[in-house]
Every structure is written in structure tokens, then in C-alpha cells.
């Protein structure tokens, strides 16, 4: 979620004049430490998350783990995000880590203390932060503005890439997979090595995506990010040559959504990459290389037959 909210969070703490440390880029060591503490059946991303927690335990006074659960009409997050603050406290109870959190949960049940909008959720952290409500409110507003602007600029950049020339593929996956240095980055690099432009399906106007996803799925699809990714496909599909689905094993939402994509997105090559922290890149290389070949074959075929 850092890749989604990083600017907001960092700007927020900066505006309050508070020091923060970020966990290092994901590497094999982080995945191994995370795998050691998480239940074996957990997904790759949550193992990586816990690995990052381990890397921070001795480096800070307090762990910031937002509780990003239910976004009302926009959909929900996977259950793991609901669980992370409590799971972290429980897994490391011997160390008694202090956890700072805010809750996004529109589920409407009365016992949810902080149910409500994002600003209210941030303000509820005032006491824990040792700041006044007003200070926190102002810091949030400043940070939110920066975050919105940064995301707008990111979308504009992606938009220009999508409008540009050359072979383009749409990368569909959670940004914690795509942007991760250990799982997603090597794949992005490999694709770029073949000279293709990678378009990140996350970079769409979220309100627009919330409408567009209905072209590929019905409204019962619960997950907010999955909806946005489907919206991203609708937004970009006419401008790309193929789609790469990137999933960390085992992902519940993706197992359903990837199937929807393969059924609903018509005549377009789709590469489905399911990653589980394999060491060897050979299997992935084979798939990417052949995928690029197919894109080129199609081009040749169109020229020959057209």
C-alpha cells in the first residue's frame, strides 16, 4: 500500500515535523524473514510485508500500519489488510511493538471507533502522535493535496506513454507486486529489455475506473483495487498490444479477477505470471521472451494478411 499512499504518508509526517524511517527495498533476505514468521499459506506479498516489519522492529519507536479495510461504495481491500495491524501486534507480542494506525472502514458497524472519512481517520491519530487535532488536520490536508497532485502527474506520464509509439503492454497487478523491487522490478526490466513500453494499469483516474470496470464485470466485484485494475484495462486496452497479469501466489482476488480478464478481454495476447518467490528467473524469462515473440508474430501476420 506504500506505493499507493506513500506520498500521502510521508508528506503527512513531514508536515508534522516527525522523523520516520522506511524499510529497505525488498530483497531475498526480507522475503525469507517474512516467510519465517508468517503462516506458510499466506500470500507472497504478505510474507514480504512481514519481512519489512521485521526489518523495522529495531529501527523505530513505532510501526505505522494503517488499517485499510472498507472503502464503502468503492469496494473493500483483501482481508489481509484488515488483519495486518493486529497480526503484527500478535506475531511480535514478545517485543511489544507500538503500532500507530488509522482505520478506513465504512462498514458502518457501531463498534468501529474510527469509521468515517480519511480525514477523520487521520485526526483520530492526534493523541497517539502527541499533536493537536488542528495540527493533524492541517498536516493531512497538505499531504493529501501533494498526494493527489503526485498521482495526477503520474497518470499524465503514463497517459503520454500510452499515446506514444512502439510496442506497449499493459501491466495488471497490485502495485505492491508491480513496484516491488524483488518481485515486480525484474519483470519490468526484462520487458523493457525487449524494447516494449510498460503501462501500469493502476495509473487511472479512480472515479472513472469505478464506472468503467462494470464493462468487464458486474457490480458485485468487491475489491477496490481489482475494480480499478479492470477500469485500467478498459481505459488503456485500445492502445496496447498485450496484457501481462502479475500475481503473487496465492492471491484470492486475483484468482477470480484474472479469470474474468481472460474471459472478457477479447482478442489480445495475455501473459499470466504467477510468482512465488522462485529463485531462478528462467521460467519467467521463457514466458516473457515467448510473449514478446507472439506480439511480433501477430504484427507480421497482420502485415502479411492485411
Amino acid at each position, binding site marked *: 500500500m506504500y506505493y499507493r499512499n506513500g506520498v500521502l504518508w510521508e508528506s503527512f509526517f513531514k508536515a508534522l515535523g516527525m522523523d520516520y524511517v522506511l524499510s529497505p527495498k525488498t*530483497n*531475498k*533476505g*526480507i522475503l525469507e524473514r517474512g516467510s519465517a514468521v508468517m503462516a506458510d499459506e499466506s500470500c507472497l506479498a504478505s510474507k514480504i510485508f512481514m519481512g519489512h516489519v521485521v526489518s523495522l522492529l529495531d529501527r523505530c519507536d513505532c510501526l505505522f500500519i494503517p488499517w485499510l479495510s472498507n472503502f464503502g461504495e468503492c469496494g473493500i481491500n483483501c482481508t489481509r489488510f484488515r488483519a495486518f495491524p493486529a497480526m503484527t501486534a500478535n506475531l511480535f507480542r514478545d517485543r511489544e511493538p507500538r503500532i500507530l494506525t488509522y482505520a478506513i472502514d465504512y462498514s458502518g458497524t457501531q463498534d468501529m471507533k474510527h469509521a468515517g472519512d480519511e480525514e477523520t481517520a487521520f485526526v483520530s491519530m492526534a493523541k497517539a502522535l502527541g499533536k493537536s487535532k488542528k495540527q493533524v488536520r492541517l498536516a493531512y490536508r497538505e499531504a493529501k493535496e501533494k498526494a493527489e497532485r503526485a498521482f495526477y502527474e503520474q497518470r499524465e506520464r503514463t497517459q503520454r506513454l500510452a499515446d506514444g509509439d512502439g510496442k506497449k503492454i499493459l501491466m495488471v497487478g497490485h502495485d505492491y507486486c508491480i513496484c516491488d523491487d*524483488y518481485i515486480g522490478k*525484474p519483470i519490468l526490466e526484462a520487458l523493457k529489455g525487449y524494447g516494449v513500453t510498460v503501462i501500469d494499469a493502476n495509473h487511472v483516474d479512480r472515479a472513472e475506473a469505478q464506472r468503467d470496470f462494470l464493462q468487464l464485470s458486474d457490480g458485485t466485484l468487491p475489491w477496490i483495487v481489482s475494480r480499478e485494475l479492470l477500469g485500467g484495462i478498459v481505459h488503456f486496452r485500445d492502445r496496447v498490444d498485450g496484457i501481462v497479469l502479475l500475481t503473487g501466489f496465492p492471491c484470492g482476488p486475483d484468482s477470480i479477477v484474472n*479469470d474474468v480478464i*481472460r*474471459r472478457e478481454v477479447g*482478442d489480445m*495476447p*495475455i501473459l*499470466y505470471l*504467477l*510468482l*512465488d518467490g*522462485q*529463485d*531462478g*528467473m*528462467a*521460467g*519467467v*524469462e*521463457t*514466458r516473457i*521472451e*515467448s510473449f514478446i*515473440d*507472439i506480439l511480433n*508474430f*501477430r504484427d*507480421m*501476420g497482420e502485415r*502479411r*494478411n492485411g
Partner: protein
Amino acid sequence: MKNAFMGIDVGSISTKGTIIDENDRILCGEYLYTKGDPLEAVKKLLRLLEARFDAENYRIVAIGTTGSARKLIGAVLNAAVIKNEITAHAVGTTNIHPDVRTIFEIGGQDSKIIILRNGVVTDYAMNTLCAAGTGAFISNQAARLDIRVEDFGGIALRSTDPTPIAARCTVFAESDLVHKLQIGCSKEDIAAGLCRAIVLNYLNNVAKGKKIEPPVVFQGGVSKNIGVVKAFENETGYPVIVDENGHLAGAWGAAILARRAGIIRPFDFRITDVELKITGKSCGRCANNCEVICVYREGALVDSWGNRCERGSVTA
């Protein structure tokens, strides 16, 4: 002296090689088991090919490699082309069957479907990185049933009532299989059940959403299993073509790609006498601890790869 081109396909289970002339016709082809040692398998393969190669009239001017060990063998043999097996298979198969529209391929640890229209690949899919329902799976289950892999298909054909078996995962299938044996199902029925399970697993996963149209060509080691072929025909309703040279399609394609590449790199069979060594070492310079693969010829480094960053690069 005429030009010839060699294609080598080194898979997890078997190693295949062909030598073709300038018209893409096979001059000779060989096939053997990799047995976990791709380098030794390729040396053996080269000796077999050499024995059948007409060295008086032809000389090999370029090599193409494919299969999971393509990079390794490509480095050792100084290949002109190193190509993934999907492309190699498509090229090799369209050469045999120009009108093919669907290629099923099930190998040792991969399975794929390739869709072609008008001789051009338009779509494909591959199994996820899990090897369920591939050759490795059949070998495992054959061993459990105490049947030779070669006999498996024939035994399956004798069944009149295939036993339903879950083939999604090798481990689950195995416990399912043990249970079915215990309740008295015959080996024939279980073998037929496994063949059917492999086909259903393939059609529901690898081939999901792909439009299967005839002619259908079935390749890869598993295509030698007549039980699986029959199960494919039953489930798809189309005749399934298995070629005598189907197992060589990847190697053939690699040879054709080497010819098309137009790069001349003469090859000498004496390489089989040269000392070759491959090492896979953990780098240890950072937490990623990449496995760096180095290829040595007569003690000198030929190539290395596997490192995610500069720190792990190995130079001579």
C-alpha cells in the same frame, strides 16, 4: 560442400537434436533422456548425431538452442540463436503442418497451447510456474503404479471405466491415487483416469478461453502416451495429430531459426572432447544472494548470468 544447421532442444526430461539442410529438411535427428545432466546429455547427443551425419557433403554452419537449458547449452556451443521453446515449436510445427491451427504441447515440466491462424502464431498460453499435469507428473504416478512410462498409455487404453482422479496437484493426486488403489480400482482404470485428468487439467487451465480449432497437433514427450492422445480426442471431439517427428519439432524449429538468422558460426564435433564445467554459486554479496551460473570451457570462463545486480557479475 553444402551448408547444414543444427537445432538442439534441451528439456528437463529429454534432449533432442536435429540437423537440417538449407531447405529445412531433416538430415538426421536424435533423442535421449537428459537425466538431470544437460551438459552430458548434449555431449552424448552430439556423438549420436555425429555418427549419422554426412560430414563429406555437409558442414554445420550455425546452431540454434531451445528448451529450458537453452542458455546454458547455447553458451557452451556458441549458438547463433538461443530461442524459447514456444517460438521454436511453432516454427518447427508449421514447417511440418503448414495448416495447423492448434498446437498442444506437454513436456517434462511445462505445458502450453499455441494458436495459429494462416500459419502465424496469434495466441498462446503456458502453465503457471507449477508443473501439475506435465510429464513429470505422469512419471511420478507411473512409478507409484509400478508401470513403465512407455507402457502407461497402452495400459490406459485397456480400461473400460476410467477412475476419476484429482490431477490439480501432484501431491493431492498421489493421495487420491493411493486411496483408489486401496478401494480396489484396477491399474488400467487408474492409468486411464490419470490420462483423462491430465487432459481435463490442461483444457481447464492452460487452454482456458482459447479457441481450439482443427487441425490439432499434439507434441512434447507426453504426446507419446497414447492414453493421453485418446483422452484429448474424446474431450475436444477433434482428431489429434501426433507426428513421428513431433518430439523433434522444437529442435527442428531451433535449427530453422538458426538458418534464418544468417549468422555463420561453424561448429566442430570435437567439442565433445573438450572439458566443460558449469557452476551455480550463491553470490552472497547482498541479501538477494543470487544464484550466479558460470560456464567454463577448458577452465576458462565462457559466460555467466543469474545475478540481479552488478555486484554479482563474474568476469574472466
